């Protein structure tokens, strides 16, 4: 039994042209038993900054709360919105603090720079090693499947609508090949002037 696959769950983030998208499945289970079908793993940290936290569900909730704590204090102290790149460093710091008793989370960050609207995505491992990419990042129990889907479907400079289609297909088909993932999906498309959230009804099994 692996701790990272005890609850199941996945997150993908993709880079588009002046936009980013982040998506997650909605299953919360305890090994084989599905307990909830509305457990989202993506949390809003700012108007244009989102973090996905797949892994052990208790840590998903705790890390989301602790990150918001740090981000709120930063915003109040510095009187400015946190940049996605800086947020990545905050996540990294939080995770490495627990180096020898880690949170069982492999986060994904997606957002636009508050001033320049430059798109940004990255993922981190459970002890805080950051990885910035310019195409896509995946994390979760179906990560192998997601890598395969993203590698085939992703192209650079996709517009918001095409990016939505691409990320949705990548996530849905990947989680269908994993027993502990699925039961619906939620997709966030983040553009300079708006954020579109869509809930997908996929194979409910």
């Amino acid at each position, binding site marked *: 039994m692996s701790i990272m696959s005890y609850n199941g769950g996945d997150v993908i983030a993709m880079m588009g042209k002046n936009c980013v998208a982040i998506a997650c499945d909605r299953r919360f289970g305890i090994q084989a038993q599905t307990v909830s079908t509305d457990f989202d793993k993506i949390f809003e940290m700012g108007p244009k900054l989102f973090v996905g936290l797949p892994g052990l569900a208790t840590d998903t909730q705790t890390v989301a709360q602790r990150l918001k704590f740090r981000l709120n204090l930063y915003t109040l*102290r*510095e009187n400015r919105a946190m940049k996605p*790149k800086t947020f990545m*460093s*905050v996540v990294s*710091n939080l995770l490495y603090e627990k180096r020898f008793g880690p949170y069982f989370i492999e986060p994904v960050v997606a957002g636009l720079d508050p001033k320049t609207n430059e798109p940004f995505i990255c993922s981190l491992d459970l002890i805080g090693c950051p990885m910035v990419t310019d195409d896509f990042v995946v994390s979760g129990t179906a990560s192998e499947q997601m890598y395969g889907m993203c590698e085939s479907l992703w192209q650079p400079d996709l517009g918001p609508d095409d990016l939505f289609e691409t990320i949705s297909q990548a996530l849905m088909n990947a989680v269908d090949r994993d027993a502990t993932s699925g039961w619906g999906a939620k997709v966030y498309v983040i553009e300079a002037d708006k954020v579109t959230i869509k809930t997908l009804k996929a194979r409910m099994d």
Partner: protein
Amino acid sequence: MSERYSFSLTTFSPSGKLVQIEYALAAVAAGAPSVGIKATNGVVIATEKKQKSVLYDEHSIHKVEPITKHIGMVYSGMGPDNRVLMRRARKLAQQYYLTYQEEIPTPQLVQRIANVMQEYTQSGGVRPFGVSLLIAGWDMDEDRPYLFQCDPSGAYFAWKATALGKNFVNGKTFLEKRYSEDIELEDAVHTAILTLKESFEGQMTEDNIEVGISNSSGFRRLTPAEVKDYLASIG
């Protein structure tokens, strides 16, 4: 022995003042003059570094020191107290970088240093710092200059131009007349040196003043040769 010092040495007087802080400010006002001016494209800080004997090796020790690549500091008051604060400031700046992978914004550094200074007015067995600091920084994100003063009380002020130390009242009056909103860094250095000259006894040379500038290229102390050029243009 140590139980005797668990109370704060900075206690209120009946008139509502913290006398130790007043005395600390007096120590500052008796210290060597320092000056700071914010220009449109940078900040200049300068101080008098008069040595009591010709035997002093003037260029081995500096009063104008960098805290980070883009923030520098000068003081008026007790040198040893400044050293402690400088070490703390540098450490605080690096701690910020460790967490955020981003250079600390000047106002954030000033708030943290001022907090340290305040702690020493409300802790057991310690006395307030006998220095006022002038912190000059350039914000790379916002592309703008900052000039702050930190007092022994822990209060901090953002200035366009100010003077500290001996004769600071005259210095500030001089700056009030000379300062303009659109002053450029070159003129600001000029004006800073002139302000120091107002309270200077004797001949001002490149060996007995120190000047530092902070702009988009970062913070640096001017070399004696550069200071000499500015002095030459004053006459």
